[in-house]
């Protein structure tokens, strides 16, 4: 037997093993000169606020009306609500420096991953549509339902990603309580209202805003009742709850698909923060996540 040949082969195996390092290397995290989401080519050539946008397209809140925004104009806004728990679904809520608000409907999940609350963005409005959904002003794309009604619905992901730009600035947003306990300089404070104050709010001017309603409790809350279990929802995919202290014109909307659907509703008084949308003449509170619920001591 040729021992040398055997030894050579063994040596070859050992050497070759050393050369065959893994191809799937340890990957370094990308360095982001620009965010990988959105369209970084959008230029701030004609920056407008929400009030100006509404002036440009007066049918901004009309139901079953989709107006194509055909003028080049960039809306500068910051995120007030996203889909972090899935209750605000396929949508974000935004406000501008004046506190005016809009909903933007987007056919995506996990928007919260790249548009956290407070993030400032530019939206190139040209090419998108605006209209009312239950008279709630909303930016989106037209959708025609089986009844032949067209209304503003979700923007496809590819169009949306081409229509906004993430700005390098981000606002700190705090509730009154948070500001009192852990104040952040320059933070934007979420407006908070007592029941009586809230009743007097103009729904047309304030719908879609991030606001706090103080000192309320939920009808039927018994420590077991949950925000949106499927049994309560019946044939719907959401549950509408009402306040003990207010009429049925004030609702709490919760999706059965949201992450806190099966959390029990606190029985006592609460300060409830969230996006206060309108559905025609009704106020509709969308709680963003469980942090929006503050128990009143």
């Amino acid at each position, binding site marked *: 037997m040729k021992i040398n040949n055997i030894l050579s*082969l063994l040596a*070859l195996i050992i050497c070759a093993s050393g050369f065959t390092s893994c191809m799937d290397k340890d990957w370094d995290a990308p360095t982001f000169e620009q965010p990988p989401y959105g369209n970084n080519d959008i230029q701030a050539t004609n920056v407008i606020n929400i009030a100006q946008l509404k002036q440009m397209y007066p049918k901004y809140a009309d139901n079953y009306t989709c107006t194509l925004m055909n003028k080049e104009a960039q809306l500068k806004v910051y995120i007030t609500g996203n889909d972090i728990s899935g209750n605000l679904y396929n949508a974000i809520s935004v406000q501008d420096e004046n506190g005016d608000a809009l909903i933007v409907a987007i056919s995506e999940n996990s928007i919260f991953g790249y548009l956290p609350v407070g993030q400032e963005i530019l939206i190139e409005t040209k090419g998108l549509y605006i209209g009312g959904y239950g008279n709630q002003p909303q930016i989106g794309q037209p959708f025609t339902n089986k009844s032949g009604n067209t209304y503003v619905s979700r923007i496809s992901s590819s169009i949306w990603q081409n229509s906004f730009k993430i700005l390098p600035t981000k606002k700190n947003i705090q509730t009154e309580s948070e500001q009192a306990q852990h104040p952040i300089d320059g933070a934007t404070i979420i407006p908070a209202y007592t029941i009586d104050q809230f009743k007097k709010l103009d729904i047309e001017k304030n719908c879609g805003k991030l606001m706090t309603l103080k000192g309320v409790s939920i009808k039927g809350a018994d420590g077991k009742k949950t925000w949106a279990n499927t049994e309560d929802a019946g044939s719907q995919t959401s549950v509408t709850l009402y306040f003990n202290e207010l009429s049925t014109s004030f609702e709490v909307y919760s999706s059965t698909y949201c992450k806190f659907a099966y959390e029990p509703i606190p029985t006592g008084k609460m300060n409830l923060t969230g996006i206060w949308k309108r559905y025609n003449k009704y106020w509709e509170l969308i709680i963003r996540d469980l942090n929006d619920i503050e128990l009143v001591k």
Partner: protein
Amino acid sequence: MEKKLLLAAFLSLPAAIGFAQNNATKEAEKDMKQDNAAFTFTEQQLGEDDDMTQNVIMVNSNSNLYTSNVGYLWSPVRFKFRAYDSKYSETYMNGVQVNNLENGQFNFSTVGGMNDATRNQDAAAPFESNAFCMAGIGGSSNYDFRASNFAVGQKVTLSAVNRNYSARAMYSYGSGLNEKGWAFFGTIGYRWADMNTAAVKGTFYNSISGFLAVEKRFDDRHSLNLAVWGNHAERAQQGASTDEAYWLANDRQYNPYWGYQNGEKRASRIVNNFEPSALLTWDYQINDRMKLTTSAFIKYALYSATRLNYNGQNPAPDYWKNFPSYNYDVWGATDGNKSQDDYLAWAESRDYWMASERNRQINFDKLYYTNQQVSTTGRDAIYWIEAKHNNHLATNLGSTFDWSINKSIKLQAGIQLASNKGMHYTTMHDMLGGQYFHNVNTYAKGSYASTASELQYDLNNPNGEVKEGDKMRYDYDIITQNAKLWTALVFDKGITHSFAAAKIGGQQMWRDGHMLNGFYDPAKGWDKNASYGKSKTARFLDGGVKAGSTLNLGGGSAVTMGIGAEARAPHAKVAFVSPEMNNNFVSNLKNEKILSAELGYALNTKWMRMNLTGYLTHTYDGTEWENFYFDDGNSFAYVSLTDVKKIYYGAELGLKFKVTSNLDVNVIGTLAEAEYADNTNISYMLSTKGTVLTDVCHNKGMRESGTPLAAASVGLSYSINRWYIDLNGNYYDRIYLSDSPSMRFGRSLAAAGLIENDGSFIIPDQAKGKGGFMLDFSIGHQFRIAHRPLSVNLMITNLLNNRNICTGGYEQSRSDYSINSTTGTTNQRTYSFSNNPKKFYAQGINGMLNINYRF
């Protein structure tokens, strides 16, 4: 009769035997064909994945022209012999069975890249007698790893390829048996492709393999052989996608499993497989007529497969909501969106897909950005790459007693003992820039309060923080033990050559859970071993009988026949309801019964050789298991199919004409049927509920998938002066895609409104793939360099570049409607899952240049 064949499945050797060629020429031709064939089999046709959905039987025969050629010829379309699952084919090494006890399959990656070591093989078609077992219905093969039986000398092989890998190099050395009784054989191989050279975009291949065998013959009676080997393979996978995706990408090899990170290509699905093995064999020649062969085998298999997972927006580029047809109802028949605006959205999405390759691949930068954003608020990563591990430790012992009672009668008997510990768990592979992750069931989050035990994957470590490399979701072992006795009697009488064989065995299995899934909280009344710790033990007694005979009618004619009956214990892989969650066995678990028969006619003359075979196999009481996302339950589901009845039948033809001394014409063909013979009982568990539901799956008539059920081949084989030219035209048809059980659940059919006026269900047709014609060509020559043979061979597959042949795929387990879980009412979706099965297509023109030199 021991048949010392080389990898005869890959050869047209049997037909060549009868023809006058000099030995050197035959060796050279054989050598080249083996190289090509071994490449084709081990790297292209056979699934190398432990969790493979497509697996192929490497059947073989020394006497049947069809069986010995079919696998090699039709490997480009992943042809499966008689459409059987590979668990019906038994693989042995020096007489010890090495099929994985847990799933019954043999993973060819175990011996990948060591072609010179795997040449020596005995083989048996389903009804052929052999020296090592009672053959399975898919045939059996026995590798010979004895050092003294390998070719003497050195050999270097270099290959340039444009398939899974781009280059291959192999070296082997065999010493032969020296005067002191020692023999040595070793081989080493390396196969390589990176993401710029691999034939399929976004894949790579990196494999090194080594094999060493040492044999000591002590005297004429005793010898010991030790063989050790291993093949470490790391490779990126290709994913199936829909015809819409292939159209948008303008590429039938479009692969959705890769993307860009920082401008570099990155694969998301990477298989890492290393199965170091050792085999010790004692050959004992008791006397001239008796021989005892005993082998002990041990293997520790490491297998992991990564995948991109998420808790939010599905990052797959071919996620259904990303397709143009999600926006507009392109199928017309459904009640989906059809407005002008919908059409514009369709067109916009189409343009986005077509605008840039980056738009249709994974954007890893976005995943990192998102994870970094959510980490700043202390939230868990939304996207991550996890690795599914299926490791196992196998120990096997096989002993075969061979007794030539007289010239006409031979008796064989054997024992096989096997134990397998399968270790299954998932680890966090890469958090993609995320800082936090917890071992909780986020999919169940919306259905339970945040404090509910049901959200915990491991109640023994609730809310456990997971870092890269840590185990998550599930962790369990499955232990399977098996013992089998078999015997065979082979005898010649008059014009007959016959055999009869029988086997009896026992199998036991149990699960050992290492995590306590929150759905089985002992505080809520569950047994403390419902999920954690050892399950009960399931035991099965199985066995079978088989007989076959060849009647020599004279004049080269013979009739062959065989019949068999068998009961097979279910494999552990299908025996548990939801092994990732609990210890429960599938109810109604029992032995699968198999009845099979075969009748054939063979003709062997000077100018022609022919085999014509018909077969029929019926299986009863089978058990199958699948898991997938089940739309109607809005949850991942584990589905058990029980009382499975299947029928397989067909005809096979092999024909070889010798036109001249240099030119052969080969004809191979089959027409087969392989389908569920009846509807199937199902039970399924939703991963977000933990409860078992039952139904009937209306899958009667659904056919075995991923293989042509009709195929024919005509080939010309020309050889002269050490030149070898082969031209084969192959036609494939009746290619079915794997049927989705959930599409045919009684509840699903009712929800979809697929009910006739008389109350019977309307069963959706099974999705099919296109067949077609493929032309293959090879040319080779053997040179002499320094009096040593240098073989050069070029093999070109799919010469006409037919990219329309589907090689397999599956129906999507999603519904064409969304369903309200409370009321059961449905809404038609615009996107049609039923019209969008996922498919694989045959590669276009491809080839291999192979050079080997013996010295």
